[in-house]
């Protein structure tokens, strides 16, 4: 099946710093989503971004589908950004029975 690798596995930032989180995937996709899992375990969808660039406040994401990677940018980080960031993909070839495959996540800690 498709492989999803996220890096770095852990990241510690000082409040106000910027960061880039990376997701590499091994096959073409027609769905790529970024999620944030807060310290209480709630998973929140951040972006649906199979290609191109999107921005939402301090967060933005870029997916270069031809090179099989996606980047999540966090600017002016806040302590509430702490948690685990997951990249999840849906391989194109699965057709109607498509399903999301998640990476192992990137643990972000933002220090005040």
């Amino acid at each position, binding site marked *: 099946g498709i492989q999803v690798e996220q890096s770095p596995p852990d990241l510690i930032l000082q409040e106000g710093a910027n960061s880039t989180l990376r997701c590499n995937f091994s096959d073409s996709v027609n769905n790529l989503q970024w*999620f944030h899992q807060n310290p209480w375990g*709630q998973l929140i969808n951040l972006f649906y971004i199979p290609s191109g660039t999107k921005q939402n406040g301090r967060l933005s994401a870029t997916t270069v589908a031809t090179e099989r990677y996606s980047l999540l940018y966090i600017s002016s980080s806040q302590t509430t950004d702490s948690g685990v960031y997951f990249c999840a993909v849906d391989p194109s070839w699965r057709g*109607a029975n498509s*399903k999301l*495959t998640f990476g192992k996540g990137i643990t972000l800690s933002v220090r005040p």
Partner: protein
Amino acid sequence: EAGVAQSPRYKIIEKRQSVAFWCNPISGHATLYWYQQILGQGPKLLIQFQNNGVVDDSQLPKDRFSAERLKGVDSTLKIQPAKLEDSAVYLCASSSIGRASRETQYFGPGTRLLVL
């Protein structure tokens, strides 16, 4: 609108016991997913329903796990008998159309299961 509801939030059982989890998706969402998230890993899909039919259960350990969505709305996931390795968070998610492609999945708060 109300989000995905799950209960219970926490459950502790002994191995070989049975346990059931309940999920109520966002109103109007035809697709419902159950995921298993083991500590330190990303969620893994166990089963996907569209309305009350199963779309994908290829990763569901069918010898001990079962799930149903009888009226196409809420769903239950059951484990019988539980094993130590079933300790995990069980997440329910829903989306508004049948394919994971192009659609955002909305997750519930999860049920944390500890098997002793």
